[in-house]
């Protein structure tokens, strides 16, 4: 069973709070934009220089001067503001964004995150990911629990080069949810995905973790 991509995005959406300013990464995190609860005001930041990101444009109304950090054409909203990349990352680095939801390749039990390069493969660059995980108040990673070979991506220690050291607050996988105490460097399993047993997730997790199911 386990969770689908939409389920994982829906679980991530539960981290939203009224009035939050949020940065969403590419992939599953982008889906969260469509799952903001009715009546809740959430403002989306795009790190290329925009606060208040709107939906995709209607066909024929694309504007080459208006894209998000994933280089997709988007629209603005009545409350939108534009600013430079320096101001945008001042906002991020200065801790003004409440929540960053992004993808991962590996997360370690101490909150280390790897999501930007695989040695030996072409490196495309980290973009804004290192700044986001270093600067945003609360960092949520959404990723598959295991890679295609079945190996755990939830690690004792990351084997891939890090994006940030001790930066992940919450990890959502297709099998469950872990809360990470970055100070203590420890992970706790707080939720199981639909149809997933504690035995299954334990077997598929390299990291050590305590169990504190809610």
């Amino acid at each position, binding site marked *: 069973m386990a969770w689908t991509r939409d389920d994982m995005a829906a679980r991530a959406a539960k981290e939203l709070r009224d009035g939050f300013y949020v940065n969403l990464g590419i992939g599953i995190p982008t889906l969260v934009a469509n799952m903001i609860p009715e009546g809740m005001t959430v403002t989306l930041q*795009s*790190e*290329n*220089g*925009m606060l208040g990101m709107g*939906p*995709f*444009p*209607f*066909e*024929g*109304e*694309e*504007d*080459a*001067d*208006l*894209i*998000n*950090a*994933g*280089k*997709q*054409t*988007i629209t*603005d909203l009545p409350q939108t503001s*534009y*600013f*430079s*990349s*320096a101001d*945008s*990352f*001042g906002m*991020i*680095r200065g801790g003004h964004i409440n929540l960053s939801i992004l993808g991962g390749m590996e997360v370690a039990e101490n909150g*280390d995150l790897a999501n930007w*390069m695989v040695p030996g493969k*072409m*490196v*495309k*660059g*980290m*973009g*804004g*990911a*290192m*700044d986001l995980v*270093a*600067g945003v108040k609360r960092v949520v990673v959404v990723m598959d629990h295991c890679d295609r070979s079945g190996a755990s991506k939830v690690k004792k220690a990351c084997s891939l*080069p*890090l*994006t*940030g*050291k*001790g930066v992940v607050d919450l990890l959502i996988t297709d099998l469950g949810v872990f809360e990470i105490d970055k100070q203590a460097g420890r992970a706790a399993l707080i939720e199981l995905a639909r149809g997933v047993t504690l035995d299954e997730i334990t077997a598929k997790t390299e990291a050590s973790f305590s169990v504190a199911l809610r």
Partner: protein
Amino acid sequence: MSHKVFKDAAAALEGLTFDGMTVMSGGFGLCGIPENLIRALRDSNARELTVIGNNVGCDHHGMWLVLANNQIKKVLASYVGENKILEQRFMSGEIEIEFNPQGTLAERIRAGGAGIPAFYTRTGYGTKVAEGKETRQFNGEWYVMETGLVADLSLVKAWKADAEGNLVYRKTARNFNPMIATAGKVTVVEVEEIVPVGSFDPDQIHTPGIFVDRIVVGAHFDKHIERRTTRPRTENA
């Protein structure tokens, strides 16, 4: 007309390019790139360039043209995907790439333009980015020292300029352009329109003219879109 306004992109770069120089260029992906000036940089045939910018164009567009013309030796960027020639030359060791976190790159350029030789940031602490750099603690947290960046030549894309060099950018085409305008020994700007001095509200100028040495109206704007994403008109939103 002011002495800052030039007749075309080639004239605007006349006398400014040389082998081994450092060039900064604005833009995020292909959004807000000085595409006319980039074509003129290609035509200048200046070689062994160090190019600083968030990206280095993408296949067949933007700074890719300069890359494909074998003019680039080194790149400082945060993301270089969708660029096959760059991938090949990087993997083969022909081109050096220094990867910078996007916010660190933006701040390094701002610092360069603002006379700040170095600053500390939490970004990249404990990662490859911090290797060989000074790290230190402030208030119990670890930070990495990053240095300011300047360039021999800054190429900027703005929406509108006046003849004094005051600039206004449009939407997310602003991105790296304002900082890059401050960090060039010489700054050349291409715009879509030159408006009469006094047209801008003085409270609403993004880049004051002091940073701008030369201005040109771009002859042709592709404004290629990398990822055209739309929603159907039937949808309620």
